[in-house]
């Protein structure tokens, strides 16, 4: 058959059942992405004869004799297509994984279609941006500012990889051609709890193209946790690479490696496995009961299925409740959701000629994956290299080692490169989720609203494995309990094993769950006392003069590096009263309401976190920065360049950056818990400062002056009238044996706090339960904005994710533990049509702890979203919806107008 792709004509025979997407990628057109392979996300959009289609759904043979255009063929020569340019100008991407499909879709729209964006963009999902910046690009808004030497910090500078992202040339994890590649697939458990009696490999090995089959008998019998924390003691060692007991539907049972994905898949289908089905338990309360089947006997459990129990009390809640004029008590529940980073999990492992092993992966913590692989396989650390290139989103989902281990195992056995790429279905049944938590809140208050006691009890369903279980529980009892001043506080929490898909790290990390409960409860209390929700919060919210205390009386390393919660409250109140909003939809039966919620988050985790950076002056007068942290759309490469540039008086573009690579960058604990700015950013700043000192001291030495007499500019050191170009300086110094190099490490302590306040105005239809967001206002206290555009992007993305949690996303299980909607078709993350514009405002603060005044910003904005929506629904209808999500079918019967 004859094909023409991006102007290249050739003949080829696609496989009969092959779709156009893989046919294009096989030819190296890696700009064509896979987000779902099922038609739902649009990441694979290409044009066939000028019409946009989803290439994962089109049989490849149907593209024969037609003209195919991919993102890589959209520009004419060096001239970008106007939509590509608009995406750069607006920086309409974060991880950039959806951009190829977005651009190919938007570039194909005519004027009439552009007039109806909700409909024409609903087939393109973006998990990072909340669509605001994409809308900006369509409207021709320019969000980037100029890169001026010395002014890098505080400027909205673009992502250095932007041009690669908009042209499809940026390389994500799977975008690599490896000679002799083999493909790994796993067979997943059909039972929620079962012992494997036997696995017959023979029929699988008989499938043509199958190279090897691995079962629990072939893996190192070594326990570990898939969760990636430097302090590996915080997660239980409760997992084997492959086990003879399966504890949730979807757990991996066996791995098959084949010459092709098709062969590996056929091998999985051919395996015969005999199971002894065991009793299963899905509800954590039932799992705590004495007669419940116990999942683990590994020594790490507190008792039975309770993996961890955390308690604390300050003051005396008994006295506090005794003093109260009013007591509110209620149980609130939050749901399990999936991260849906658009790039699925995956890695590729190979051996180089020197015998070293290389693992290219989609991870938020390549250094910890490196440590874990060394632990599992007994490698000498220097023999292993783990790295990322572009990572298509993380949100906590990639703070997990899920694919690297089996690829390495197969590589060791076969000696050939191995690739394993998760399907979208596997993301739902075989990755991690947000911990489902049930929180009982009891509040006591005086008639004037002053809190006298706060008590919470959290039960967290960690599923079959306990990774992140105790840390998320501790987080749920920590910042949200510190947000209000009260002499008497008590909390207790339980992390419970059940036969569900495991919980994991997820943006907001436990704090989201209890913030939902506490912020709803505060509103309930306000209603009970007849006090306005703003007033009640202001009366009790923590102030800069307060001692930060959750439920433990011991001292912590959390301090107010700055405080802007009061400003956030004022900003949201003002904007809700006066800001732009949409009118209530036409027609009867709409009830309107407003709601607010606040959230406090510690900038960084309480556990060990450190990061390092190396910087060098290059012969051409530019700089090279190596930093361990990961970029997955969080914007850290951009902000790190800005931090370094501002210290060095340079332009951000003068700084080359490499990150998240165990060979090329110093150790970093991983990019999660908002550490990209406060830890890695700190390391970058310290390193840049050391390099500046190095350069200035050298100049002082050779000119017999003092370092203070000199300053760094874009391409020179300047002192009085003297000016030495960096190129000249580098040449001189190097010849004399000087090294313009610096390395520093940063450690996370003390930790500052960030605040977010969300205001929502909505209309809810009392008959159909439809919810329309009329106004969304968000105020953030995140210190100095290193890159305002990026801060807005993170907040918009967090809000969209919060809206999904509250309104559209729902993992629906049957009573045997099977997920009924393991696809984006039926697990709906918000599309363009679901996300209103948010008015984003910032408190004017400068942090004394974070680098250059900045605080954490990547995750805290999600926390007040769901409670603000519940509070607005409460205001509109007088009904408290205390269980997420609020889909119309789950709320309608409580809304009906009563006669």
């Amino acid at each position, binding site marked *: 058959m004859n094909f023409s792709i991006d102007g290249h004509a050739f003949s080829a025979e696609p*496989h*009969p*059942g*092959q*779709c156009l*997407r*893989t046919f294009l990628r096989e030819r190296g057109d890696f700009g064509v992405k896979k987000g779902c*392979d*099922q*038609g739902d996300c*649009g990441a694979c*959009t290409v044009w066939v004869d000028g*019409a*946009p*289609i*989803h290439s*994962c*759904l*089109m*049989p490849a*043979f*149907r593209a024969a004799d037609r003209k195919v255009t991919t993102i890589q063929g959209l520009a004419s020569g060096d001239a970008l297509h106007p939509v590509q340019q608009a995406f750069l100008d607006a920086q309409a991407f974060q991880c950039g994984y959806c951009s190829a499909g977005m651009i190919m*879709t938007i570039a194909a729209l005519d004027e009439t*279609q552009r007039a109806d964006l*909700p*409909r*024409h963009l*609903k*087939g*393109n999902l973006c998990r990072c941006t909340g669509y605001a910046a994409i809308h900006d690009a369509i409207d021709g808004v320019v969000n980037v500012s100029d890169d001026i030497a010395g002014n890098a910090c505080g400027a909205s500078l673009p992502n250095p990889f932007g041009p690669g992202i908009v042209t499809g040339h940026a390389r994500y994890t799977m975008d690599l051609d490896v000679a002799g590649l083999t493909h790994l697939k796993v067979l997943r458990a059909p039972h929620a709890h079962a012992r494997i009696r036997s696995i017959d490999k023979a029929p699988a090995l008989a499938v043509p193209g199958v190279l090897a089959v691995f079962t629990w008998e072939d893996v190192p019998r070594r326990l570990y946790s898939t969760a990636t924390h430097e302090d590996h003691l915080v997660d239980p060692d409760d997992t084997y690479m492959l086990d003879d007991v399966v504890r949730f539907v979807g757990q991996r049972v066996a791995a098959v490696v084949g010459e092709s*994905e*098709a062969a590996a*898949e*056929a091998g999985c*289908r051919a395996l015969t496995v005999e199971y002894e089905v065991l009793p299963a338990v899905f509800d954590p309360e039932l799992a705590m009961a004495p007669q419940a089947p116990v999942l683990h006997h590994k020594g790490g459990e507190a008792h039975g299925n309770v993996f961890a129990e955390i308690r604390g009390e300050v003051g005396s809640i008994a006295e506090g409740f005794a003093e109260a004029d009013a007591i509110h008590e209620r149980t609130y529940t939050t749901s399990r959701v999936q991260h849906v980073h658009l790039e699925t999990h995956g890695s590729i492992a190979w051996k180089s000629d020197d015998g070293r092993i290389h693992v290219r992966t989609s991870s938020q913590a390549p250094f910890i994956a490196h440590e874990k692989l060394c632990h599992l396989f007994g490698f000498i650390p220097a023999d292993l290299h783990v790295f990322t290139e572009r990572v298509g989103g993380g949100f906590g989902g990639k703070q997990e080692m899920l694919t690297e281990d089996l690829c390495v195992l197969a590589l060791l056995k076969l000696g050939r490169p191995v690739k394993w790429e998760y*399907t979208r279905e596997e993301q739902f049944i075989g990755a991690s989720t947000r911990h489902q938590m049930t929180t009982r809140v009891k509040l006591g208050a005086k008639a004037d609203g002053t809190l006298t006691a706060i008590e919470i009890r959290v039960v967290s369903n960690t599923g079959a494995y306990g990774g992140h279980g105790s840390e998320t529980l501790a987080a749920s009892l920590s910042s949200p309990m510190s947000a209000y001043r009260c002499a008497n506080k008590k909390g207790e929490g339980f992390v419970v094993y059940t036969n569900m898909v495991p919980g994991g790290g997820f943006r907001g990390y436990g704090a989201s769950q209890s913030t939902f409960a506490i912020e709803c409860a505060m509103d309930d209390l306000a209603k009970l006392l007849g006090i306005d929700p703003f007033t009640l919060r202001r009366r009790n919210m923590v102030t800069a003069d307060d001692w930060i205390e959750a439920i433990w009386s011991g001292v912590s390393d959390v301090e107010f590096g700055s405080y802007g919660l009061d400003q956030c409250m004022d900003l949201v109140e003002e904007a809700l009263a006066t800001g732009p909003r949409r009118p209530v939809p036409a027609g009867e039966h709409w009830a309107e309401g407003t709601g607010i919620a606040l959230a406090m988050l510690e900038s960084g985790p309480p556990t060990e976190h450190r990061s390092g950076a190396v910087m060098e002056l290059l012969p051409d007068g530019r700089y090279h920065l190596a930093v361990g942290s990961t970029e997955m759309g969080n914007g850290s490469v951009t902000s790190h360049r800005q931090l370094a540039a501002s210290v060095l008086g340079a332009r951000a573009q003068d700084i080359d950056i490499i990150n998240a690579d165990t060979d090329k960058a110093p150790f970093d604990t991983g990019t999660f818990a908002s550490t990209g700015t406060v830890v890695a950013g700190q390391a970058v700043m310290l390193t840049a400062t050391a390099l500046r000192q190095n350069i200035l001291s050298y100049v002082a030495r050779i000119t017999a002056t003092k370092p203070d007499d000199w300053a760094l500019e874009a391409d020179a050191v300047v002192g009085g009238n003297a000016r030495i170009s960096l190129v000249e300086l580098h040449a001189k110094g190097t010849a004399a044996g000087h090294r313009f190099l610096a390395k520093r490490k940063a450690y996370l302590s003390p930790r500052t706090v960030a605040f977010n306040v969300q205001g929502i105005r909505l209309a809810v239809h009392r*008959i*159909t*339960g*439809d919810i329309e967001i009329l106004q969304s206002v968000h105020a953030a206290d995140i210190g100095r904005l290193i890159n305002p555009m990026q801060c807005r992007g993170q907040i918009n993305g967090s809000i969209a994710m919060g809206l999904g949690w509250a*309104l*559209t996303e*729902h993992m*629906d299980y049957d009573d045997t533990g099977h997920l*009924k*909607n393991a696809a984006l*078709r*039926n*697990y*709906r993350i*918000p*599309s363009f*049509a*679901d996300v209103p514009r948010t008015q984003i405002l910032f408190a004017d603060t400068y942090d004394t702890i974070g680098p250059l005044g900045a605080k954490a910003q990547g995750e805290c904005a999600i926390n007040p979203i769901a409670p603000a929506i519940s509070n607005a629904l409460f205001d509109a209808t007088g009904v408290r919806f205390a269980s997420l999500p609020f*889909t*119309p*079918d*789950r709320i*309608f*019967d409580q809304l009906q107008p009563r006669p």
Partner: protein
Amino acid sequence: MDINTIRQIERPRAAAEVTHWREGFAWLSGGTWLFSEPQPALDTLIDLRAFDWPDFTLGPDGLKIAATARIGALDALAPPPEWTAGPLLSLCCRALLMSFKIAHEASVGGNICMSLPAGAMISLTVALEGTYTLWPREGAPRTVKAVDFVTGNHANILEPGELLRSIHLPAAALKKRFAFRRSSLYHLGRSAALLIGTSGPDGDLLLTITAATFRPVQLHFAAPPSAEEVRHAIAAAIPHDGYFDDVNGLPAYRRHLTFHFAEEIRAELAGPGAAA
């Protein structure tokens, strides 16, 4: 996605050439569902596009739609003004979760043969009193009423290898007045309930209930019914467990919407503009 079990694509010129039908075969229309899931039971696809059927035939007797016509093309079709119910074509084409890019490939016949509750091409053709022409592998073509085609969620009356050839929408139905209601749990999503009412010159009401139920339910009222009559008719026609249950809407909700929308439709069609 790649359907790795497929070993062969056949592209015959005419359906009559397909005399060797066996298990493992499937007709390939737009491919938008077939390629969206693994199909372990299939090994051969027979390409319907090779037949080159003309998409639409408009005539005094109504509209004939080839099963292979794309949903996007139907959406773009400009119906003659005397077809009062013409706007339903586009409303239904847009009542699907799928992106316009998928509608560009997905076919009307493919959507009908999938026979999902949220199949808006089923809603359309049932509401407009359509008939389907089916070509069995052996024997003479048969014609069935659209309302009788779907038998359950993802189930229909097609025999193995039987082909949906075309859909005919009679002009009389296209000339009726109509009312349309649809709901989804999120914006522009999959239908939780899709109801259509039509009313002819004699002021009757033909109420078509889809998406909420496993299969289309159609109720005819010869004269404009009262709210009470409509409620009774629905309650009699659809048992409590007759509402579809999946993540796109709990059954109680779908039932609630059915009654609510039915009443809105009744009131709308009984209102001004009702049969003179």
